């Protein structure tokens, strides 16, 4: 909209004109500044990686040499195959858990529902690699269950490799399926289902012929998010794949990058490029499919859930609780074990704080770094994200579309790739950032900004434009009106988005593992390193600290939200 930006006819010099323009239309200035930032911190590193992927590792010539090497070598092909296998398998498992839960929650009320929901959301608190580590504690070579089974003469299959990674990833990511599909179900017009039933379809028939086709777009979206999450994940395959034994693209890119430091990162860049191309292709495919069969129907979807009493309700409650309990087991095991005494690599049934004592001794600056980096990044995410979300929701045009696109790129690009890109381009003046706290905060910010812009745009879409016009007509310049009207109305949604962003930022591993140096080690890195090859007790203690601090932050957000005067804003 060309709403503002009224040029002053008598403006004397260009700085004065610029200032005046910014005052009249600060949003365009903010959008331009963000685009510039994103070009430097998203487009440039990725473009550089893309360029290097075309520079032959051997010959140094521009061409497809690296790609020929990649697809010609069984080693690289295996990593690609592993990534795809783990991705598909994990997605199927996550759907198998998440879909029934979503259906049950969207359609029925039953005993224990709120508690089960809290448990599901809590399981999003811990980063996937913590879950992976927990699986090793249970089913690893000397895991609790493995040992117990061996005691009665049963040899369990190993948890390492494709199945273990898929399972651990699925248990970490099924809440995504649950949330997205439940949201989709809430938007399905219930009268359509009633119509199908009145036309003589049984309950299963209605689900198959009406409900499933209608929620297919949200199921696809959920599947996409899970798949992207799995193939982008670095920690889980690294821990459960035992490094080189079961390489996937993300871990391969990382080890190639480490071994190529100083040299041209040709093959690392190529691996990154393959990973990104797969991710982008899937996103585009799902986009095209979803828009082609858009079933948006806003004619009131939200019929209240049906209350299941008696046996049916108890059964459903029990079933979902068991499902969620299984999924939460790893987290519970890690937490409990962190308080147990360790002898050798075996936990003893004796409670102690010993693990924490040792962990804190070895912690160094890791916790402090994490708090500072994540705190700074979160502050930036909240400020910039809510402003940009507002711009995206309120302005249309090429500038906004470019901005939206640039911001969403890191949502799809695996953290390891972004990390390698940063390490590649920001290692010389004028932007010599490698080894600094700035680079970690920046990568945190860039990776999790999309959560906030989406959350805030979503809220702004629901707020009557007239409110801003009213504020302006009553005498407030744009930013003042934003502060007095939009900010208070957006606050609850921003807090919700910020809570999620906090957990994600605080437990970020896959980019920071590439970029950290001795002085910028963070808590997730410490936890990962102990889990990979360290003291089992300390690893459990770090994992518990990680989840504990993330949860503490979350509680703060919940309190902040609760202390807002609770008022039902009809359209919020």
């Amino acid at each position: 909209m060309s709403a503002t930006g009224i040029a002053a006819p008598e403006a004397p010099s260009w700085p004065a004109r610029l200032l005046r323009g910014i005052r009249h239309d600060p949003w365009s200035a903010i959008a331009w500044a963000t685009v510039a930032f994103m070009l430097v911190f998203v487009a440039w590193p990725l473009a550089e990686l893309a360029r290097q992927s075309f520079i032959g590792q051997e010959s140094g010539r521009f061409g497809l040499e690296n790609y020929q090497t990649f697809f010609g070598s069984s080693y690289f092909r295996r990593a690609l195959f592993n990534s795809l296998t783990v991705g598909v398998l994990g997605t199927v498992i996550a759907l198998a858990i998440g879909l029934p839960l979503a259906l049950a929650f969207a359609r029925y009320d039953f005993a224990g529902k709120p508690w089960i929901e809290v448990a599901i959301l809590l399981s999003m608190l811990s980063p996937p690699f913590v879950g992976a580590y927990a699986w090793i504690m249970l089913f690893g070579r000397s895991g609790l269950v493995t040992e117990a089974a061996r005691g009665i003469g049963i040899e369990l299959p190993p948890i390492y490799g494709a199945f273990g990674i898929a399972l651990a990833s699925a248990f970490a990511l099924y809440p995504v399926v649950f949330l997205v599909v439940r949201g989709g179900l809430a938007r399905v017009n219930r009268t359509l289902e009633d119509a199908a039933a009145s036309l003589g379809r049984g309950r299963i028939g209605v689900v198959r012929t009406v409900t499933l086709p209608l929620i297919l777009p949200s199921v696809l979206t959920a599947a996409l998010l899970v798949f992207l999450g799995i193939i982008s994940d670095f920690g889980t395959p690294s821990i459960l794949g035992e490094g080189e034994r079961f390489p996937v693209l993300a871990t391969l890119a990382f080890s190639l990058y480490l071994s190529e430091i100083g040299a041209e990162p040709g093959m690392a860049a190529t691996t990154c490029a393959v990973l990104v191309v797969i991710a982008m292709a899937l996103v585009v495919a799902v986009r095209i499919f979803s828009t082609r069969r858009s079933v948006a129907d806003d004619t009131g979807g939200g019929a209240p859930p049906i209350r299941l009493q008696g046996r049916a309700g108890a059964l459903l409650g029990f079933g979902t609780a068991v499902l969620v309990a299984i999924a939460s087991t790893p987290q519970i095991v890690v937490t409990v074990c962190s308080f147990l005494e360790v002898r050798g690599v075996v936990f003893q049934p004796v409670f102690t704080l010993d693990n924490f004592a040792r962990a804190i001794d070895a912690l160094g600056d890791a916790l402090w770094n994490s708090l500072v980096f994540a705190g700074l990044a979160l502050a930036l995410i909240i400020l910039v994200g809510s402003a940009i979300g507002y711009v995206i929701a309120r302005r249309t045009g090429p500038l906004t579309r470019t901005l939206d696109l640039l911001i969403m790129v890191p949502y799809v690009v695996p953290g390891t790739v972004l990390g390698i890109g940063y390490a590649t381009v920001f290692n010389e003046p004028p932007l010599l950032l490698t080894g600094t706290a700035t680079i970690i905060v920046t990568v945190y910010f860039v990776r999790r900004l999309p959560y906030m812009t989406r959350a805030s745009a979503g809220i702004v879409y629901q707020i009557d434009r007239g409110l801003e016009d009213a504020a302006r007509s009553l005498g407030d310049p744009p930013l003042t009106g934003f502060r007095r009207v939009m900010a208070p109305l957006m606050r609850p949604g921003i807090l919700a988005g910020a809570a999620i962003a906090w957990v994600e930022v605080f437990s970020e591993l896959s980019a920071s593992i590439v970029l950290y140096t001795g002085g910028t080690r963070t808590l997730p890195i410490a936890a990962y390193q102990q889990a990979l090859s360290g003291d089992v007790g300390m690893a459990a203690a770090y994992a518990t600290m990680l989840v504990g601090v993330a949860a503490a932050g979350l509680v703060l957000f919940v309190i902040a939200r609760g202390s807002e005067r609770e008022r039902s804003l009809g359209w919020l």
Partner: protein
Amino acid sequence: MSVAETRPGPAPHLAAAGLVKRFGSFTALDRVELSAQRGELLTLLGPSGCGKTTLLRVIAGFLQHDEGTLRLAGRSLDGTPPEARNFGMVFQSYAIFPHLSVAENVAYGLRARRVPREAAERKVAAALERVRLGNLGARYPDALSGGQKQRVGLARAMVIEPDLLLMDEPLSNLDAKLRIEMRDEIRRMQRELGITTIYVTHDQEEALAISDRIAVMERGHIRQFATPREVFESPAHAFVAEFVGGCNWLDATLLQDGAGAAARIGAGAAFALPAATRGAEGPARAALRTEDLRLATPEDPPGCCLEGRVGSLAYLGPRTRMRVIIGPGDAAVEADLPSALPLPNEGEPVRLSFEPHRLRVFAPESGVRIA
């Protein structure tokens, strides 16, 4: 309010000349001319999508026009952002700040103007009193009805003593009865305070009831800008005749004979046009309102009237709407006749007559009034 009295003068308070607003290649406003005298209530009337909101937003400063001038009290408004124009706005969606109480809503503009607290409180109380919400200052908007919300909107816009009050379909979301009540109230307050007002509506009855002058808009053009009576009684454009009141449309041919100009309806009778109509010849469109037609009596000479057959009758209480097929083909007119009269039955022949000066003739392409 004081503004209106302290700056007398014959020049219009608000003057828009040659306003053009384009969205890409689409012209939303095309050479719009508009002026409002101090204290006047002026209505923009037109169907949805004709550019009313666009014009209002250009005046408010939310949109920048591409051509033309916009002046308030003789000074150009170019380069003055909305927040500096001191125009009050009332919205169809009410746009009441949901996080502020009623009193805080009304005080919003006063705070932006840094009015001292006590003075602000006094003004807010008076404004709420004026819209009869004196006891609801502490309430929050979610506990208000639509009508009450719009009263808050009015109080909030008026309390800043705006130089211009802009209202965009303020009553469209209210039910019919409340709409009539509120429009009378708006008119009363507007008169009392002498606030120059631009009021947007697509409801012709509302426009006729409330306005000093009406600008009838179609596809970005102002087709007529005149008093409600003029707009209704002598529409300057075919669109105005159709939109305000509705018409029977008849194909006509303009003739010049010895006696002056005349219009032949279809292949039938020719009707003399006022002496002022000179020179026009050829096809035209003639309009007759349903209430201008009556049953011809035997005294009416042949050739004076529209002749046809009764197609259908619809009883509407005091009046009955008769559809008369006058041919050729299925060309028809509708006439509203007093139900008390003895009326012919369906299928029977009928003759309708009218006062010749009620026949309005428009150019076929441009829609401009010829006679």
